[in-house]
């Protein structure tokens, strides 16, 4: 389930500035947003064989948006999480060149967190219509029952 943290660290030391730690989530690699795609590619082609991008999600941390990439290796049955941070309205570099499975989740994340998608073959909105505010930002409120009732 958990890959060896020191092995991950030594693998990544040759790729980019990144720190790996073991948290309640599992092994998490923190990277700068510019290095994220390179780190994903390195993890994919390493001996860990993280061949699958299981999931991709954004989290609004208040001052910035954190993007979490969730990778899995079927051969060793291990998971690793790569996290990178972007400012609000920042540019999300597409990882679809490395993992085709990032195609749709990236569009969704960029749209729902108000990010700009770069390097994506089809950087359109996925779920909501044009002009809709980024719904998953914490600054966007949901309407209370009273507000809904009063229109």
């Amino acid at each position, binding site marked *: *389930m958990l890959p060896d943290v020191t092995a991950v660290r030594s693998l990544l030391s040759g790729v980019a500035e990144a720190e790996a730690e073991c*948290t*309640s*989530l*599992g092994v998490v690699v923190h990277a700068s947003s510019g290095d994220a795609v390179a780190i994903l590619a390195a993890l994919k082609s390493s001996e860990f064989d993280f*061949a*699958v*991008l*299981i*999931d991709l*999600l954004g*989290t*609004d941390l208040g001052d910035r948006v954190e993007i*979490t990439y*969730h990778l899995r290796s*079927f051969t060793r*049955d291990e*998971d690793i*999480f790569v996290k990178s941070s972007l400012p609000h309205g920042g540019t999300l570099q597409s990882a679809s060149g490395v*993992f*085709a*499975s990032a*195609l*749709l*989740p990236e569009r*969704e994340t960029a749209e*729902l967190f108000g990010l700009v998608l770069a390097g994506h073959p*089809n950087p359109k*909105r*996925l*779920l*909501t*219509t044009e002009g809709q505010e980024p*719904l*998953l930002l*914490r600054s*966007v409120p*949901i309407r209370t029952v009273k507000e809904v009732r009063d229109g």
Partner: protein
Amino acid sequence: MSPRAAEHVEHTATGRMVFDVGSQHPSTHGLLRLAIETDGEEIVSAEACLGFLHRGIEKLGEHRRYHQLPTLMDRGDYLSGIHGELASALAVERLRGIEVPPKAHWLRSLLGEINRIASHMAWYGTFGRDAGVTSHFFYSMRDREALLDILEAVTGQRMTFNYVRPGGVIADLTVVAESKIRRFLRTFDAHLDEHQTFLGGNELLQKRLRGVGVIDRDSAMSLGLTGANLRASGVPYDVRRDRPYAAYSELEFGIPIGTTGDAMDRYLVRIEEMRQAARIVRQCIEGLPEGAVMAKLPKALRPREGETYACVESPRGELGVHLVADGSETPRRFHYRAPSLFAIAALEQMLPGTLLADAALLVGSVDIVPGEVER
């Protein structure tokens, strides 16, 4: 001009046609719109246009207590509500460190498998409709009806169950429900053989499915496919076996895998999964332990700050819930991995190059539920 038209017949040059399939169309299994561009009968490109069912489940989850998350997950993949509930309950339990009584584990497996058969039956019915058969649909609905009846007897609901909660399940198995399950198990294997002979044993259907919509092992992995779609491509990965949850570590079941990854393999894998699911149901009914079904929990759950990911094997693949807690009564971030989302991406890659006549069949073969994709 199409490359196929001869040079000298410029006036009869063929143009490309755009078919807007959906959003309301019997072959789209919900509200999925496919913009398909064709050159004659051949599909040149396909794009899925989503969003018709976006209800903001993730956003709502951030404003709900941890107890309430399963209720939201029911509305995601509405064909297999138990699995959604289970994934969110597992995530909360992992985050808070809740010990679930053994009987609840077994009931979760039991209901999960019953729900899996019900969901696969709905897929089986609609998939055959895509191939142009009608009769089998009503037989699949007959079996699904029996299963929904069981689910109703246990949970009180036919589709949005709200049954699995953090800490266990809300109700024990009643005598009536148990006898209903036993009655169902008596006939199900024979019914499944009947289904398999009728549809899968039909040579016309086999000819249509063999070699169509092939996803090889590598592209299945790079597209992030899970569940039956991945196993049909020859990757023997099943969350139930590889990361056991509920009572699966104590249960015996086989994991069917395919070889070529074409539509026929996906069909066969799902049919065999139903058989294995019935086997698990039988074991659960026999081995159900005694005891409580719900752990004692405070009214409001306040997990410590942290993050977790819990996944289950839903009928459509790996359904994972990613929770970020900030120490309050509501999650900071509630996200779920929808296996159908990745199947739709695979569909976009798979459709170009095939015939328009196969489009509906391929949409059916990857078994998507738009409600789950669009959150």
